[in-house]
């Protein structure tokens, strides 16, 4: 297989995911409306309850909306990662996963392509959200819109890879609601997306530790700092490490000898 053939294969997978995304308008709209609801209602309500002191990367007092905007960008990516995972389980149930699995390209490459397709979709959604958020006076420096791109790609990869791992364990579509409840919500709430962690530490040191260890906190901080043209080395390391770990687990999960396929009982 040549590099051009690899490129065509990846292009085909990304193209298919994009077509599916375009066809599923409800999914697109809900992905966009969800963070906007948080921004318009939740943040407006809480801006008078939660005071945010001057913490990096901000160099002045900021309204609460400005604080949670990067967290909501990360939320878009979290939901997208899980949505890709759901679509893997759906593809498996519907049979179209088999089409992918009998492709002559290495399985890790097929999974990576699936992952990148999901990331591409989530990055576009994140930028649409940031464009709308500008009207809420969430105005990071213009350069920040560029420097946030690698952070979006990396955090999208991590959350997408986590979704792939989960999809290799979830056998049926019906079980997916459990994943939402046990993964998405705890990850989102036990993080720095909605409140600065020094506030959490004041109320519960245990929860503070949980938040610190949560890779979603690192993804949020990576995006937050990048949006204000700064680097967060610890977050970068954690997100990179977790991406590699989750990707390796996904490849094992989809290995015909070790993963879910080996565990499944056959039809006849």
């Amino acid at each position, binding site marked *: 297989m040549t590099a051009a053939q690899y490129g065509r294969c990846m292009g085909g997978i990304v193209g298919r995911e994009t077509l599916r995304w375009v066809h599923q308008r409800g999914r697109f709209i809900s992905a966009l409306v969800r963070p906007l609801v948080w921004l318009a209602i939740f943040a407006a309500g809480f801006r008078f309850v939660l005071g945010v002191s001057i913490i990096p990367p901000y160099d002045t007092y900021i309204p609460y909306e400005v604080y949670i905007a990067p967290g909501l960008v990360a939320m878009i990516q979290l939901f997208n990662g899980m949505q890709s995972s759901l679509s893997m389980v759906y593809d498996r149930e519907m049979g179209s996963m088999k089409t992918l699995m009998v*492709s002559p390209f290495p399985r890790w490459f097929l999974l990576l392509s699936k992952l990148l397709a999901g990331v591409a979709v989530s990055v576009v959604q994140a930028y649409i959200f940031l464009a709308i958020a500008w009207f809420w006076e969430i105005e990071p420096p213009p350069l920040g819109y560029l420097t946030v791109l690698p952070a979006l790609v990396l955090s999208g990869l991590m959350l997408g890879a986590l979704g792939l791992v989960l999809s290799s364990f979830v056998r049926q579509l019906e079980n997916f609601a459990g994943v939402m409840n046990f993964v998405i919500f705890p990850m989102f709430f036990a993080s720095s997306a909605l409140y600065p962690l020094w506030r959490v530490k004041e109320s519960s040191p245990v929860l503070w530790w949980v938040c610190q260890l949560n890779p979603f906190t690192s993804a949020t901080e990576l995006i937050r700092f990048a949006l204000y043209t700064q680097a967060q080395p610890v977050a970068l390391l954690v997100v990179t490490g977790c991406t590699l770990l989750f990707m390796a687990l996904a490849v094992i999960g989809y290995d015909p000898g070790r993963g879910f396929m080996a565990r499944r009982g056959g039809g006849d």
Partner: protein
Amino acid sequence: MPATEMAALAVTGLSHRFGQRTVLDDVAFSVQPGSFTVLLGPNGAGKTTLFALVTRLYYAAAGRIAVFGRDFREQPQAALARMGVVFQQPTLDLDLTVEQNLRYHAALHGIAATIAAPRIEAELERVGLLDRRRERVRQLSGGQRRRVELARALVHEPSLLLLDEPTAGLDFESRRFLLGHVRRLCAERGLAVLWATHLIEEAADDADLVVLRAGKVVGQGRVSDVVAGAGAAGLQDAFETLLRAA
């Protein structure tokens, strides 16, 4: 049909278990280039598991599978590249058009769009669905979807075609069309075909036959030879004799 290196598909000593249950037990057979080989067995004989193993959806822990001499363990990519598959379960993306489904398949084989386009057109023409190419698959009937799957399996010009109960749930006309089309492909292109079914009438006298029962091969050879070997009057009798004898 001894398993040889030159066979389109050579399966030797293949066994598979799900937990304590043995689904396939020391299965050995081969499919020669240009041969229409019918894998005949009742429901639960292990046909679908065998398909999952020869398409690498499952990992073959015991035994060997080779496609044109390419071993699945050593060269899985090279083996998969020469293989076209129609699964028992429908695998088309219902929300994409017929053409988009076929283009996606071509991309999964690394084929350039300029090369894929005329092939897609030709294959859809052959199955009589060229004029429906811009419709979403959801709008097609069951028989038409099967034809699209067959066209799709041929876009990358495989030398070995595997079909797992492709006529299940189809009406008489669709079954006749599908069977006739695949038999023509064998004759005209020298395509090797493994056609799994539980319907005896799909095995013509000049076809090769592998009879599977409870995960074991209980008979194989040219249909006429298997019938003669079983001392039966026809394939129906021979099939029943083989199932009883095992």
